[in-house]
């Protein structure tokens, strides 16, 4: 044990991370803060009240009083210029222009504007005497799992596995290359694969803390469920951490400077931050991009995490996703071995 190179190298790696307060912040504290902030920002708070305006003019007062009675709308009476201004800057969702026929003035690409238009129209038609053709009722869904925070937490977990894997491996390797430590190690009888393996072992040692803290906080603060098996979740997280640790190894295989490796990392991670469905669903991207989006390792990891955590999926349902990001990991690992610069 005492003179086992693998043990000593791994210990060194773990110590290096533990003794870097910034690393602990980015690995553990930051994702929790982010999830808390986003969880609060997007908390379920009942139906929102939509701001609408009535443009001043003949007949405006009647429209104003009709709309004022609707608790889902917040009505203001504005003159032409002020109404235009408020609509342009998004302070109101729709402007109702009185006249022979009512005109709804709004931006159809804004979902809340479309909703406000329908609500206002409905209200005004009712006030004008329209009778509903059929009676309707409502039933409210309150079960956990459909909220934004439930969508968000598995995505944040995936993004964190990517970021921590890449930074913790990439930075320390390039740092060691820059300090000529790699060259010094090569001058010893150390086996090179042991050095690379120790990087992974050191990285995986933090997985328990990382995943545990984020899943625990999400559970305690926001009641985010964990429907699938914990064992499967750990398996997905471990394979995901391996995949991105390999990617970190590949990215760090050649650069000699921290600046160089930072640029490469951003190049690799940036598309996945945007495309891989961390903050919003990948279905928003056009059909033509889908093969690319779905082939990204983070997309596959996020999907697998969501299915296990929220939908309670078993191994059979996520094995396809695991094959995608696991395959990326294996490919990146061998590419890194072939390209690695020890001097």
């Amino acid at each position: 044990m005492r003179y086992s190179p693998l043990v000593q190298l791994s210990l060194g790696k773990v110590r290096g991370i533990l003794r870097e307060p910034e690393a602990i912040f980015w690995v553990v504290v930051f994702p929790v803060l982010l999830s808390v902030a986003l969880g609060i920002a997007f908390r379920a708070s009942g139906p929102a009240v939509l701001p609408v305006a009535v443009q001043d003019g003949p007949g405006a007062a009647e429209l104003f009083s009709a709309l004022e009675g609707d608790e889902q709308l917040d009505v203001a009476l504005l003159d032409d210029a002020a109404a235009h201004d408020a609509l342009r800057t998004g302070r109101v969702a729709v402007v109702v222009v009185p006249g022979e026929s009512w005109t709804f003035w709004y931006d159809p690409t804004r979902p809340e504007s479309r909703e406000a238009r329908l609500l206002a129209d409905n209200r005004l038609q009712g006030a004008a005497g329209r009778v509903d053709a059929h009676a309707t009722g409502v039933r409210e869904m309150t079960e956990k799992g459909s909220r934004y925070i439930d969508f968000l937490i598995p995505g944040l977990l995936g993004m964190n596995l990517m970021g921590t894997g890449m930074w913790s491996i990439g930075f320390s390797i390039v740092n060691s290359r820059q300090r000529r430590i790699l060259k010094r190690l090569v001058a010893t009888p150390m086996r090179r694969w042991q050095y690379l393996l120790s990087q992974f072992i050191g990285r995986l040692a933090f997985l328990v803390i990382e995943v545990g803290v984020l899943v625990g906080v999400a559970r305690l603060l926001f009641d985010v469920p964990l429907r699938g098996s914990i064992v499967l979740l750990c398996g997905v997280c471990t394979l995901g951490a391996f995949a991105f640790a390999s990617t970190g190894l590949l990215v760090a295989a050649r650069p000699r400077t921290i600046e160089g490796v930072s640029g490469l990392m951003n190049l690799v991670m940036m598309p996945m931050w945007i495309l891989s469905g961390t903050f919003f669903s990948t279905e928003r991207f056009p059909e033509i991009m889908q093969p690319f989006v779905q082939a990204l390792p983070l997309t596959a990891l996020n999907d697998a995490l969501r299915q296990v955590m929220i939908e309670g999926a078993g191994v059979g349902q996520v094995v396809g996703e695991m094959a995608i990001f696991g395959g990326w990991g294996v490919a990146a690992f061998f590419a890194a071995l072939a390209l690695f610069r020890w001097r």
Partner: protein
Amino acid sequence: MTTPAIRCKDLVKHYGDVVAVDGLDLEVRPGECFGLLGPNGAGKTTTVEIFEGLLRPDRGEVEILGQRWERDDRALRDRLGVQLQETRLEEKLSVLETITLFRSFYSSGSEPTEVLRSVGLEEKRNAWVRTLSGGQQQRLSLACALACDPEILFLDEPTTGLDPQSRRQVWDIVLAFRARKRTVLLTTHYMEEAQRLCDRVAIVDRGKIIALGSPAELIEGLGADNVVEVTCDRAPNLEGLTGLQDIQPVDGDAARLRVTAGHLHRAVPEILAALRSQDVELRNLATHQATLEDVFVALTGRHLRDE
């Protein structure tokens, strides 16, 4: 005949168009401390890194302890202690952790605490590398090279950038290792270091060995023990004076001359008399005992260090 610790023949290494090592032959005997002395860029580091198996020569043969690189590299590395010129060890590991890590790579060696004692760092064992002074970091680097109790110790410019006290501490460590009849190969551009530590010195310039021998032999080769340097207001003519050898301008300035002489009490009055008769004004006159630096200047017309 015993196997040489290090032997190389016709070693050549290019970096693009630049020739770093230009046909170098060398033999280092077991148990001797051998120095490669030369200015920056002479090819010393390249040569040592070829010996250490870190660089591959373009041409030539290298044998270390009778073995060649690329046959059984791990077994060979297990017997060598290496200190590179620019390694900055991990800042956030402690001294003992660092030395234990390096010890773990070797099949045998010394107890880490023993090694730390031998380099005078036992009190710093739990300090982070970051908190060490330059001299202490250099001694730790030496300790990492000594962790395997090596048969050959390679030191590349072990005291460059150190203060005089730290330099002497490093010298004491090397001398203690040498006293155990182990082989040392070191590079340096400090002639005092080569004179103090080395049994034999090879003076290297532009990738070639231009002189080889013990420090005493090399200085003897100058033919005289003393060096006189005169600085005048214009170029004096000292040719033909008795008792003077090897008159050379310093840094290409004909008004500054460097003269080697057997006996100062004869040479200095001769020089002064010549200056007076030529009506040349003397600005400065200095004398010192000949050193390896003077050997290098005599051979190349240049100084070891550009100062």
